[in-house]
């Protein structure tokens, strides 16, 4: 090669080059997000985003780190508003919170199954749901608990129901510029029941199917993950169970009903048939757990 030839630059628009910002306020963050539009990504724990950038699945021009914004790293609780978990609270911090462990244990349990301990040192619940994976571990307890997602957007801080939050695979209702600032779980008299996650390997694995089956103040709530384009609530089954005593016959009927509410796919982790079988098992075990809890 000839030294006098002016060489072209490789990677000026390199797939892994981006501007990094660490704003101090929500307003500043929003301004940046609006400036870059679809080409901006919010960086929180980074356990999804960095992997996607590394794998060439995301090519953001700007990465907006929200961890420098004050007030997003707290867990607060009061009897009126319930429990609010800031967007930047890590899953391991959640797992150590006494209120969460005592009053919303099902959520703490689900959060504890995300990734590995090292991942949970960085990953957040806000990120887990904003990623909108159909199998997000914290999604099913949040759905079952009728959580509210706190969003900083055009109209300042508002709340969106978790039921409106998930739109499709990897798609939420969030608009460009919107920032999830926290998740609020209403206060309840009593919560019984469990989160279950069926995996190929016990630890550090994605859910083949996951389910939250709980009884809140006497009403059964069922939420399932990895059985549809988004995590879902099994509303028809819940309606069927309303006011019924949970007998084995009722449980078996409920299981058949749940199968009508899901649309699992087959992929590298499991076939459609196997997912349906596991749904049956998780619902049966979840409902039996409620009998045991009484």
């Amino acid at each position: 090669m000839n030294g006098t030839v002016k060489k072209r630059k490789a990677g000026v628009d390199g797939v892994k080059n981006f501007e990094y910002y660490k704003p101090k306020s929500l307003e500043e963050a929003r301004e940046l997000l609006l400036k870059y539009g679809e080409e901006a990504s919010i960086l929180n724990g980074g356990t999804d985003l960095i992997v996607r950038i590394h794998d060439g699945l995301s090519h953001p021009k700007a990465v907006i780190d929200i961890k420098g914004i004050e007030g997003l790293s707290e867990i607060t609780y009061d009897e009126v508003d319930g429990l609010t978990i800031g967007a930047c609270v890590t899953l391991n911090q959640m797992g150590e919170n006494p209120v969460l462990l005592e009053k919303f244990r099902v959520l703490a349990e689900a959060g504890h199954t995300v990734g590995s301990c090292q991942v949970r040192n960085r990953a957040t619940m806000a990120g887990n749901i904003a990623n909108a994976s159909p199998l997000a571990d914290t999604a099913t307890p949040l759905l079952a608990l009728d959580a509210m997602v706190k969003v900083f957007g055009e109209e300042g801080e508002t709340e969106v129901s978790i039921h409106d939050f998930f739109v499709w695979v990897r798609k939420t209702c969030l608009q460009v510029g919107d920032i999830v600032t926290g998740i609020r779980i209403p206060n309840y008299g009593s919560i019984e029941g469990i989160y279950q996650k069926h995996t190929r390997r016990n630890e550090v694995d994605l859910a083949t199917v996951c389910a939250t089956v709980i009884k809140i103040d006497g009403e059964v709530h069922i939420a399932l993950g990895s059985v549809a384009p988004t995590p879902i609530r099994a509303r028809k089954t819940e309606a069927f169970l309303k006011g019924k005593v949970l007998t084995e016959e009722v449980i078996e009927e409920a299981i058949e009903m749940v199968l009508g509410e899901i649309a699992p796919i087959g992929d590298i982790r499991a076939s459609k048939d196997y997912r349906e079988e596991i749904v049956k098992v998780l619902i049966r075990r979840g409902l039996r757990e409620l009998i045991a809890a009484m």
Partner: protein
Amino acid sequence: MRIVGTSINRVDGVKKVTGALKYVDDIKFHGMLYVAVKRSPYPHARILEVDTKGAEALEGVKAVITGQDVPNRAGLYLEDKTFLATDKVRYKGEAVAAVAAETKEIAEAALAYIRVDYEELPAVTNAVEGLKSEAPLVHPDLGQYKWGPIFFPEPGTNISNHYKIRKGDIEKGFEEADYIVENSFYVPHIQHCPIENHSAIAQMDADGSITLWASCQSPYAVRKALSVAFDLPLNKLRVISPAVGGGFGGKAGTTLEGIVIPLAKKTKGRPVKLTYSREDEFVNSFVRQGMHATIKTGIRKDGKISAVKNTFIWDGGAYTEYGVNIVRAGGYASTGPYDIPNVWTDSICVYTNHPVGGPYRGFGMSEIHFAIEQNIDMLAEKIGMSPIEIRKINGLRPGGKNATGQIVDVCGLQECLEDVAKHIDFNRKESGSQPHKVRGKGIACGYKAPSMPNDVASSAIIKMNEDGSFHLLVSAQDIGQGSDTVLIQMAAEALSIPPQKITIKTGDTDYTPYEWQTVASRITYCAGNAVLKACEDIKEQLLELAQLRLGVSKRDLVLKDEYVVSKIIPGKGVAMKELALGLSMADGSGIHGPIIGRGAFIPPNVRNTDKQTGQGEKPVAFWTYGCQGVEIEVDIETGKIDVLKVASCFDVGKVINPKLVEGQVEGGIVQGLGSALFEELILENGIAKNPSFVDYKIPTADDMPEMIINFVENPEETGPYGARGVGEPCMVPAAPAIANAVYDAIGIRMNSLPITAEKVLKALKEKSSVL
């Protein structure tokens, strides 16, 4: 013995746990260049044109190479590969071109500027299909390749080795049988998953000589293969393996080394580094070959197996330079550790357009035993005999004959079987921990020999320092198995010095002496013997000098606690360190000079087997026998299996370091467990669907069973202190024992690996719909 047989701490332990040890990827040089590799998107295609001009014109790009830069074929046993594809690509991921640039980012970005035109070819994506006459040929030029005399490729087909065993009279054997049973099994491709990815750095000196730093198990074998590929004399090629973070066979041959060298030759002295990503590890390093097994067995009502006919068809992948020997090992071990008078085996290596098959802990034994050990249980059931009893009747014993007709000399198989049956409490049926869980127990035997050419060599140098400390130089590599520690222990024992007085140096072909390879569970045995011979050499020199100093005949002298002492006269002796530089005489003169011991070893009397029948008196250096039993629990609603307990017993001849050998066996069990329950590189039309830890799972700490690990010590006559290798054998029975336990628990035979929850549940459903 005071040092051999004790659990001294690993000599490399502190450096490893503190992170102080430098692996290849930790090495950074001034002016170092980084490599990215352009890889084939097709499993099988003709390369029409490679245009690298666009990449070469980029700022920061220093060199670009293609297959034309590395035309020589290389390989360990069959020279069938080039380090970059030349005429064709034979698997998805094969290197077609490579770039060295100022940064990794520039190198990666440059790949987009390399244009490769392909003509896609029909691919062989199943080994059994690859045998058919109409199958596309992966290597049409096979007949022109070079191979070792113990391999049998069939040019004009996809067969790169057809190894045969013809023992006794197979037809007569079947005639004598009361039952004839035929069973088929399949073992998929899996990957080693070492914690350290492959990494290599090459640098060319001003005189044209090359230094290569590589995370490799076998610096000398790597040097030889690369010297052939690049026409480099061995004295102009230095291979350094500074540390290896796990190999399991995956770092035994050559992989990425052949890419960095041609780049280094083009970059005028600048070091060139390539480190594989985890995704590369799965597809672009070695994988364990897939294998289709069919076993037809004749058995008498009294439990004696009269004949066995094996067909093992191995999915060798795109290049089988190493794989042909796995197929050979699978052939000569094809009966498992059983004494069967009539044997007919065809062990066939088939080229496919899959990732390159290569050495993986077990070297074919895990694959064949998955079939053999389930087959034995199925035969036992057929004649109403217990799995223990059938193994007692047919299992090898001293005086018996194995598949090659070799008469068995030392063999503790029966003792191992008894020990395991006792510790797993085999005949006791346990009930499940919950109503939807059932328990099962399974047992499997296994054996393995070092699968290596007959005359492979080892050597050791031990140098005495002025203060009575020593440097032990070998090229046996500590890849986690603990060889640094046990070789020191053996030398310390031989020289009667504390192990702390010996420092071991390994892995530098310019400075540490020849070792064929760190593979085949051969290091304790082969390198150990070389070390003992080097110690003998030192001892001889010390006794010679001490005899002059002390005036005592050397046959009455002995090394004891860092002294040469008289066996007869108490208190008469000389400190070894006083002789370190030779002997100073009374008149002020000196003789001899520094004490340096040299040792060399080749396993004695290992001879070729007959080409037609595979029969021979001593085809291998030694056999290691053992047995494992497992207890599992199956969730019959989800199909999920938990391995609760494993009992293991191997005849290792002599335990050199109890703690280390227990660790070895624990690792083998858990690796076997992973292959049994989770692991498969899923290949669809030649494309790997799960080349990452997201969807390729290996066991975690949470999956560890309770492990009861015992040993039998029937000394190996030619082994150092009677020791033989166990690093690979301890993985071999794990997967079939689990499969046998699955049958015990739920009455279902799992004929293929891995035994996933989904497979188990599907089989349970099918079974209940039949009933």
